[in-house]
């Protein structure tokens, strides 16, 4: 093939093929057409011109394509690369085809510094995120850094409030629900009052997301890249964030909102797993109207009896993980904080079940 003539990217001497030394962050960028995703991407590429960044437009299709193009920006130049989506074994393969294709490409052509994946306006970022949120045990070259959603200040409110037929989800809301960072763009096109409404609506859906307001998608890149939203590095930062989350009021019936509670005490690990599974997999818990609670995003810091480290909880749709953080409880009270983003959530019901089934007998003090 033609590659033999291409000059490959040099690799550091100590690294061997097959042993991932450095992991590359993947940032998923969502948002409706016209919100400013492409502008954001271009901005990132030009600002970070000394880094090697791969940009993949649109998520991977339903296994129909054999190849997919991606753009690589390096030293101010943009060139095209091809991902080979070998059709071979889609069946019992743990890693998604798209993920493997990216790893293969990096092995041949050297590692990128960042990978940006732009999804279509109607995509479920949760599904794309699960492609990259792989078990640490898989030793992937790639890790999920965070989900960024771009919202049009002028039309965003309309998109978020759009009523969908029964059973169908409002994609704009879902994108906000899953975002680690929400960029409200084109603020120059709206009045203060409208902007407040958009901001409040976003906040009402997702009590955790960081919100930035921009014109022409101009952001400080350290706010967009290296978010580390899915790993334990920033345990202390997460604790802070969780403490600041206030539960939200719905702006619409049937809308997505954020519920949160805190309970002090040690938890039984097995019981917590059962609680999470009953909530995420079995969808056993219902609100007062008898509608099953549906969680889109889940984050928390918990304490297990006998473990001196704080444990981080992360969940996207049905996937969840519990990981020990480097943070120690030390003399601090063992306050478990959980944040749920989803539909039909009832904080009191959740808290009650949590206290009665998960918290170990002994020190039980319900927080606000």
């Amino acid at each position, binding site marked *: 093939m033609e590659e033999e003539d291409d000059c490959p990217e040099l690799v550091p001497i100590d690294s061997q093929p097959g042993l991932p030394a450095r992991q590359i962050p993947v940032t998923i960028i969502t948002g409706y057409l016209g919100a400013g995703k492409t502008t954001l991407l271009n901005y990132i590429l030009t600002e970070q011109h000394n880094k090697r960044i791969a940009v993949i437009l649109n998520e991977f299709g339903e*296994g129909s394509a054999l190849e997919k193009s991606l753009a690589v920006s390096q030293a101010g130049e943009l060139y095209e690369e091809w991902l080979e989506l070998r*059709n071979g*074994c889609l069946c019992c393969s743990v890693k998604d085809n798209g993920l493997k294709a990216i790893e293969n490409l990096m092995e041949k052509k050297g590692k990128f510094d960042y990978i940006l994946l732009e999804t279509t306006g109607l995509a479920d970022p949760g599904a794309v995120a699960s492609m990259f949120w792989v*078990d640490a045990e898989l*030793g992937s070259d790639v890790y999920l850094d965070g989900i960024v959603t771009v919202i049009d200040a002028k039309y965003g409110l309309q998109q978020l409030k759009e009523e969908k037929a029964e059973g169908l989800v409002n994609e704009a809301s879902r994108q906000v629900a899953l975002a680690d960072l929400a960029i409200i763009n084109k603020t120059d096109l709206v009045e203060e009052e409208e902007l407040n409404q958009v901001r409040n609506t976003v906040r009402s859906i997702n009590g955790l997301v960081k919100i930035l307001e921009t014109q022409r998608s101009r952001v400080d890149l350290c706010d967009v890249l290296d978010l580390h939203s899915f790993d334990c590095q920033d345990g202390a930062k997460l604790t802070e964030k969780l403490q600041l989350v206030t539960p939200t009021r719905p702006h619409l019936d049937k809308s997505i909102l954020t519920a949160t509670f805190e309970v002090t005490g040690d938890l039984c690990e097995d019981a917590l797993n059962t609680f999470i599974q009953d909530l995420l997999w079995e969808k056993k818990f219902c609100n007062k109207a008898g509608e099953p609670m549906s969680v889109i995003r889940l984050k928390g810091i918990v304490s297990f009896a006998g473990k001196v480290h704080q444990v981080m909880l992360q969940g996207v749709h049905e996937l969840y993980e519990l990981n020990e953080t480097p943070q120690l409880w030390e003399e601090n009270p063992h306050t478990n904080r959980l944040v749920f983003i989803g539909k039909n959530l009832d904080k009191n019901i959740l808290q009650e079940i949590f206290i009665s089934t998960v918290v170990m007998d002994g020190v039980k003090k319900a927080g606000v």
Partner: protein
Amino acid sequence: MASTEARRECETEGCSRDAKLQCPTCIKLGIQGSYFCSQECFKGSWTSHKLLHKKAKEDKHQTEAKNCMEKDTNTDPWLGYRYTGKLRPHYPLTPMRPVPGDIQRPDYADHPRGMSESEQFLKGTSQIKILSPEDIEGMRVVCKLAREVLDIAALMVKPGVTTEEIDHAVHLACVARKCYPSPLNYYNFPKSCCTSVNEVICHGIPDRRALQDGDILNVDITVYHNGFHGDLNETFFVGEVEEGAKRLVQTTYECLMQAIDSVKPGVRYRELGNIIQKHAQANGFSVVRSYCGHGIHRLFHTAPNVPHYAKNKAVGVMKPGHVFTIEPMICEGGWQDETWPDGWTAVTRDGKRSAQFEHTLLVTETGCEVLTRRLEDNGRAHFLAQM
């Protein structure tokens, strides 16, 4: 952290700067010492450097060309591919075998790219089907037939027999039982079963290679009958096999059996990986991460996903009526895998051996039923007769 090593000098003629970078193509081709100080310097000497690659590939091709064209068998079909172990493909393959028209075919059998629309439709869902009593009967029947086919394949395993010959027998055995051999044309897989020798982890394609004394061979059978798939595999010894290989195969079998022992309603699917990895590691072996067990019934591969390694995020809890496979692949060396240019054959990156065993299981009220169990010889796996 890297210890202090001898200072390396950049390869570029005239440049004596410190070299901290290496050419990745040289690593792949086994050329030592291609150290450079920077990408720019490397680009500068690229025109002459790439000749080293060319020469290495030509040398390799020459030595292999001598062996590879014996008796019209091509054992080096992919120019430039660096094999991880001693095994080579033996081409060409015989043409795809037809299946008589009166045998019910799965949807992918007639798709030009072998894609299964029914599987694609459910891709990404984690809802696990609870089989009705009729479905369960269908699964019992097909799994028994799959077992019969595997037992026939087992009889053929001896030095001198080619994997294609085994595949031929498997194909005929399926047809005789009015079964469609599930692997055939599944995403364009060219044969009716998978044969994986030594360092091949799984999905080996039967070809002209004759089995050699000392090999370990896994034959993976899946058959489709009356709308259901049944899947199982066993690793066999070919002739006299060394102690290390015996230990590997024995441990792999134990990993599967221990996992099966834990199956009952209420157990989380992700727990199986913990059991398997614990036992494999205790014996000094590693667990392949890239391939997993899967739900199976009217679809060949569906929810749940059953990884075999510890600490995985598999979704789902076992309930009566669930049907799925457990199929751990255990390795002598590292767990990392790579795929041959044929797009199927998965091999260990370090070229060391890998073994596998598989059963299709039905979760019952109290535990599970091993649908693909052997009915003779006390249900013992074939290799045990040769230990």
